[in-house]
């Protein structure tokens, strides 16, 4: 018995010494501190947390959400979103960047593309998503930049492309920054095979090669110009008959004259889309010739900002693959809260083909409060048959009000209300006689870090 106790004591003593040595704070402290300091010093974190409570209501039809015009329908849900950006500066020339989101939705699962099954991680579809994972490499005193990996790709305004994708990006500055040229090669983007619906994704093709060349310049402090060329070759791997070969040429101009500012974007789109028809091996080829424009005339006087906006794209509003329908790779446009929108909640679409909008926007700031009001009148690019021998392109009107209160520098709450008043072209497309309004209401909060 005594031997056993002695043995146990000996074992405890050895164990104590082992633990003491292993966890001794001083033994490896110097080496660990050096590593820890190096990483922490070179690491940057940023991001934001956002939560929004949505409420939609209508007795009318709205694509993807309200399917009939018989009863008054309501949708209410809450979304929660945490964005995390990590940047590790490996050396003065190399950075590794990653962005990941934690996202979930609670509430009714009525809205298309929003999974509202629950809140726990993993149970509501994709809760944790890697958006970006790429490195940047700078050369020639930062004048030349390379980026490689899963990264954000966008073109001005997001009319053609605003998406994360895998590929290579290169940019080069000359003439002391007066001129910047860039080249993108994008091999694939997330869910490129799936059709997200109107304005999201590109057909069912998934073998993508996208090439972009562009340049930015500013001749003086009052004028800047960006112009670009995009070529996309998109094939369907499963059905080798389908493909799209499309080109875009665009420019984006910004003028500042004292309190006035003008923004003008023009894009010409051409190319061919070949689809396999249903009944035979015959293929149908569509030659695309389309255009997009966006004009913004603004005036700023102290806390007041007033802007006239006109934007639209050619096309047949009901047929995306059409000879004059403007094509996009993955657009992300937000004009209003309900009709042209990609910021959450109800949305008729996030791209522009076949629709034109013109309206006014007024912004006002006082103390920590910012207010925005907007009115936009929508028309379809082509006239729609309303009745026999009667055509119209009057799509509807949208009214919107947004408020934002900055409680602290990094914490704000916001509120948004929008009403869409449908007209003849809309009701005809939706095959209803109902002209009831469609309402959207949102209240939320956001903390940046």
């Amino acid at each position, binding site marked *: 018995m005594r031997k056993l106790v002695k043995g146990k004591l000996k074992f405890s003593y050895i164990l104590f010494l082992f633990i003491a040595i292993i966890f001794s704070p001083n033994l490896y402290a110097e080496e660990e501190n050096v590593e820890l300091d190096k990483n922490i010093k070179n690491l*940057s974190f940023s991001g934001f947390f956002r939560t929004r409570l949505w409420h939609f209501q209508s007795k009318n039809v709205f694509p993807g959400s309200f399917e009939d015009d018989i009863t008054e329908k309501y949708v209410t849900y809450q979304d929660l979103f945490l964005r995390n950006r990590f940047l590790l500066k490996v050396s003065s020339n190399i950075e590794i960047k990653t962005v990941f989101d934690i996202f979930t939705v609670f509430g009714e699962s009525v809205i298309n593309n929003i999974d509202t099954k629950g809140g726990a991680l993993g149970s509501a579809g994709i809760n944790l998503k890697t958006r970006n994972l790429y490195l940047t490499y700078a050369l020639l005193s930062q*004048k030349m930049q390379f980026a490689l990996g899963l990264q*954000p790709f966008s073109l*001005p305004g*997001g009319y053609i492309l605003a998406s*994360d994708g895998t590929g290579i990006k290169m940019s080069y500055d000359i003439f002391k*920054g*007066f001129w910047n040229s860039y080249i993108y090669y994008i091999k694939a983007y997330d869910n490129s095979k799936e059709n997200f619906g109107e304005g999201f994704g590109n057909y069912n093709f998934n073998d993508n090669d996208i090439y972009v060349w562009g340049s930015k310049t500013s001749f003086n402090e009052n004028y800047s110009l960006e112009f670009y060329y995009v070529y996309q070759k998109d094939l369907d791997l499963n059905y080798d008959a389908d493909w799209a070969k499309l080109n875009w040429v665009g420019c984006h101009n910004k003028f500042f004259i*004292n309190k006035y500012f003008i923004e003008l974007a023009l894009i010409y789109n051409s190319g061919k889309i070949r689809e396999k028809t249903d009944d035979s091996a015959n293929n149908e080829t569509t030659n695309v010739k389309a255009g997009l424009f966006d004009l913004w005339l603004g005036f700023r006087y102290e806390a007041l900002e007033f802007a006239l906006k006109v934007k639209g794209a050619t096309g047949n509003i009901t047929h995306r693959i059409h000879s004059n329908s403007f094509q996009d790779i993955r657009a992300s446009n*937000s004009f209003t809260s309900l009709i042209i929108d990609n910021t959450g909640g109800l949305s008729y679409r996030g791209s522009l083909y076949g629709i034109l909008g013109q309206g006014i926007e007024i912004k006002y700031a006082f103390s920590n409060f910012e207010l925005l009001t907007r009115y936009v009148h929508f028309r379809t690019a082509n006239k729609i048959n309303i009745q026999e021998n009667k055509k119209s392109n009057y799509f509807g009107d949208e009214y919107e009000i947004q408020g934002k209160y900055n409680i602290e520098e990094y914490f704000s709450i916001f509120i948004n209300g929008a009403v869409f008043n449908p007209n003849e072209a809309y009701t005809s497309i939706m095959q209803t006689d109902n002209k009831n309004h469609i309402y959207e209401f949102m209240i939320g909060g956001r903390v940046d870090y």
Partner: protein
Amino acid sequence: MKKIVFYIIYIFVFSYYLTAEEPVIRENTFNDIIRKKEIKIGISMNYPPLNFEKDNKKIGIEIEMANSLAEFLNVKPVFIPLSVDSYVNALEKKEVDVILAGLSRDLIRAKRIWFSEPYFQVTPAVFTDKKKIPQTKFGEFFEETPYKNIWDLKRKQNFIFAVKKASVYEDLIKTEFSEHRLVIVENNQQGIDSVLTGKAFGFVHDSLFLEYYMQENSKLKSGYVILKGGKRAEKICVGLPFGDIILKNQINLWVGELIRQGLIEKWLQEHMNQ
């Protein structure tokens, strides 16, 4: 002839010593302050919220500090407003005993004057027009890398900076943003105006001043934004004459106590809200 050569060499050597930047030693400043029962405090002309005028009265965090320092030393405070390029000379010429004027610690100044422990920390920041920064947010989820601080502007090569002449930020922009265009302004208001009129895209100053300015002019919030300096910070210290160790010890003790008692934080809140 030998004499002429000797005099030329003598004048040359003497003039070298005259122009060399050697610190002026003032080791008896503390004794002088106590003996005269008066402390001459160099303050900035106008530097809200540190020091500014309201209803014909000087107020601000540094005015509170100056009164507190005089009380601690049991002497009378005398305020002497100075321009930013005369701080060091005023200390050397005994025009002032200490400087309390949002003075940033830097190695060039440290060759000629001493600094106390920092009582404040600010980052370089830029006041800029939102429309001069490229769109980075598209829709609900997608974003390009956002412009969150002044260093992110390295990505925007055609950005035009405005900086105040002889400020630490003139040197900062010239070294860190050497490829960018620069507009030199005489004072803070000219810097702000250069952004409002579009002559420059952003005015660089410390984050504290720009935040105060934005709060005072909340009408600018819809169209303008402040990008701060990220991890890089400027240490704001009391400027002291070179060589007086007793004065430095006493000032450091006083600064430490102000921080411990939370008085600087309290004064900051009070004056930011004014």
